[in-house]
């Protein structure tokens, strides 16, 4: 077939170019599976503890909504599937859709694909290459997932079905993204459309799993979970997923044959002929460029906080008969289980808000390397004002997200237990993390100013803090090491009482980093 000529060359090129990105995705997903499997095996040493955990989960619709359907919960395999099933499937879907859009529409939008297409390369080669690469990545994730589960002596059938469910959901969302990439000429809209379907899939199966399970059939993630790993091991739901994946892939191929290169099926809307009088400063520009990002981070944080808040009241019950889980939240908090849990959720919200701050500040660097900074700096705009516009947007955006998360957590939890005073208490607790969140914005500024080539290293630091937050207490990392993270060194309210010194210390480090970054930016060459 000449329309596929060059597919393997393009696939090789994509793997070569994105090898680090692919490796990180696979490693992250597999690490979550492995760590959860290991800790679950440790958490439930006896059948009695499993029975208690199963009963607790069954009696808690919120937990089922968050984690997954009620399948074989009185076995270790079933508990592992509960912990990593819905989350793992969601992440595999996210990975697949982002990678497909990156390799297809984003390449086309950048103009690079035009050069490739002028060579003896078939019309469908880039789409096919993207699906080959992503499909292979999904297969690797599935295979490693199965091996991780087998390494914990879980049953072979369930381990294989679970790994396979990761693969088919990955393929399904790869096919979906391949289709949305044909519809719009904007890669971010293409990822947004497919991501929206992914979020809806999670939500629909959450509603289903909390109730009778019927609604879950309508969700790709729910459908894959109907294969019931460790509790029946049915293959046909997976085959159904595979059929949908094939259908979506075929649709993408048909649509791509019907459109012009560079165009979408939907024509872009015209914009205003004149700029708003407010779009007149570097800060206004930064806000205009990043308002979408701020909005999405805030919505995500509020959604997470609402889910966590609605679970909070049943945490007591959930952990009542499980000493290990109780210990976990107690170690994080030290006070009551519920306050320990609330403190933990706020820690996660703060980590997410720090991710938002990083993403927004790092735009300074991409503006520079994308040569959009030069024309702005050629106007009477100093480098400090130019970068400062993005920094202020990051501080405001991440602060907004963090406060919104505290507010949403307080309102939902307060509504569940009928105590409005929780709102102020939890917003206050969230604010303790504000300097830690802003520290990440300042860290990015420091790297951009002093070591611009290492800007993305800030993400590695962030990843380290996320890992400490998720697993630091589970795998007994010494307190002295954990305190290196700005999220661990500050008091975890509402479980602990306020200590100002560490919070002020984190704030001081942030100020020093930001000042050093601006000074470096003023002195160095723009690249």
């Amino acid at each position: 077939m000449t329309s596929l000529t060059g597919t393997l060359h393009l696939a090789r090129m994509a793997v070569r170019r994105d090898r680090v990105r692919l490796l990180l995705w696979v490693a992250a997903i597999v690490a979550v599976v492995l760590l959860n499997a290991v800790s679950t095996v440790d958490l439930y040493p006896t059948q009695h503890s499993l029975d208690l955990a199963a009963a607790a989960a069954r009696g808690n619709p919120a937990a089922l909504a968050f984690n997954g359907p009620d399948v074989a919960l009185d076995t270790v395999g079933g508990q592992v599937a509960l912990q990593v099933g819905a989350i793992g499937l969601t992440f595999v879907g996210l990975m697949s859709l982002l990678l497909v859009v990156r390799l297809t529409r984003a390449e086309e939008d950048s103009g690079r694909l035009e050069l490739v297409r002028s060579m003896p390369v078939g019309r469908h080669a880039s789409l096919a290459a993207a699906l080959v690469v992503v499909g292979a990545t999904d297969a690797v994730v599935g295979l490693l997932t199965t091996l991780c589960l087998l390494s914990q002596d879980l049953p072979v059938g369930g381990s294989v079905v679970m790994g396979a469910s990761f693969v088919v959901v990955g393929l399904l969302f790869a096919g979906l993204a391949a289709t949305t990439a044909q519809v719009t000429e904007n890669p971010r809209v293409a990822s947004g459309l497919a991501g929206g379907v992914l979020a809806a899939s999670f939500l629909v199966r959450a509603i289903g799993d909390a109730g009778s399970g019927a609604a879950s059939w309508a969700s790709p993630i729910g459908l894959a979970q109907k294969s019931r790993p460790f509790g029946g091991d049915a293959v046909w739901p997976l085959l159904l997923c595979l059929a949908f994946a094939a259908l979506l892939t075929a649709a993408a191929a048909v649509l791509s044959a019907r459109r012009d290169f560079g165009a979408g099926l939907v024509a872009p809307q015209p914009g205003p002929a004149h700029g708003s009088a407010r779009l007149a400063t570097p800060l206004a520009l930064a806000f205009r460029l990043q308002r979408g990002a701020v909005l999405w981070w805030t919505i995500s944080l509020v959604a997470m906080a609402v889910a966590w808040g609605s679970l909070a009241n049943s945490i007591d019950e959930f952990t009542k008969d499980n000493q290990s889980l109780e210990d976990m939240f107690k170690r994080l908090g030290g006070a009551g289980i519920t306050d320990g849990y609330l403190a933990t959720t706020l820690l996660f919200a703060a980590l997410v808000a720090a991710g938002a701050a990083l993403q927004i500040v790092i735009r300074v660097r991409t503006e520079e390397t994308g040569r959009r900074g030069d024309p702005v700096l050629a106007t009477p705009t100093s480098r400090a004002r130019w970068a400062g516009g993005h920094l202020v947007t990051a501080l405001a955006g991440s602060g907004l997200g963090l406060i919104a998360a505290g507010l949403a957590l307080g309102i939902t939890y307060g509504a569940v237990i009928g105590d409005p005073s929780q709102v102020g208490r939890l917003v206050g607790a969230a604010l303790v993390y504000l300097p830690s969140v802003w520290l990440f914005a300042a860290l990015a500024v420091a790297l951009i100013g002093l070591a611009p080539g290492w800007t993305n290293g800030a993400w590695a630091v962030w990843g380290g803090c996320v890992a400490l937050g998720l697993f630091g207490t589970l795998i007994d990392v010494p307190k002295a090491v954990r305190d290196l993270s700005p999220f661990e060194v500050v008091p975890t309210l509402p479980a602990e009482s306020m200590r100002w010194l560490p919070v002020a210390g984190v704030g001081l480090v942030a100020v020093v980093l930001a000042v050093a970054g601006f000074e470096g930016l003023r002195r160095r060459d723009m690249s």
Partner: protein
Amino acid sequence: MTALSATGLVKTFGPTRALDGLDLVVATGDVHGFLGPNGAGKTTTIRVLLGLLKADAGEVSLLGGDPWKDAVTLHRRLAYVPGDVNLWPKLSGGETIDLFGRLRGDLDPKRRDELVERFELDPTKRARTYSKGNRQKVALIAALASSAELLILDEPTSGLDPLMEEVFQECIREVRAEGRTVLLSSHILAEVEALCDRVSIIRNGTTVASGTLDSMRELTRTSVHAETERPPVGLDRLEGVHGLRVDRDQVRFDVDTVHLAPAIRCLSEAGIRMLVSTPPTLEELFLRHYGDAVDASDDA
């Protein structure tokens, strides 16, 4: 009065020496052509002039100030069009033009609308959907709509069609008539010939020639083709005559432009029936200065 001057500029990026003692002087009110092959250091020079890069050595003065130290104040008085125009995909062309006008603080809506009309730009399109030529128009309109006394243009027309090139040349003539200064880096020699009072030619980060186009032409050869009644006598002994070919009544040769007069006298003694004399084009100037670029890079 000089609008900008650079002396002995040196800039290295790791092992590459992008600028190697470059000199550039632009007089106030001139349209100054800045010529050089790809990678000669034109964009690096411009980025030093804008204060985006700090020169490793050499003196730079721009509008009487130091472009590195006084960047913000100097930028009130200049406008810039980058060679590779990258815009924000979400913003429309009109929004982008107005943003630059407002960042500069001298947005003139009337002038801006007139330029949008003249360049036939659709300002409602998102920058994502603009072609290279249209992105360039956005940057050009933003710069030309300003009241800046110095325009720094880095290959501003490489994506424009011939009609728009004509509009661009008109605009630059208007700018010159207003007494403003233009530094025009370009590859398009016809454009430089049509617009520029003076040119500087650079290669491998150094200036190889600078002056008016006329003075540069004197350094090169004029090619002559004549038809004479009798074969010319003594032409081959004249100083500065090269490549003489006489084929019955057809005479062809190149002559150093300073030695043109004696050669023509010799021809007229032989009885000129027809004479075509071709002055050196900028292309020839260009080739003369770059012709040995290949050899030079072999040595390096």
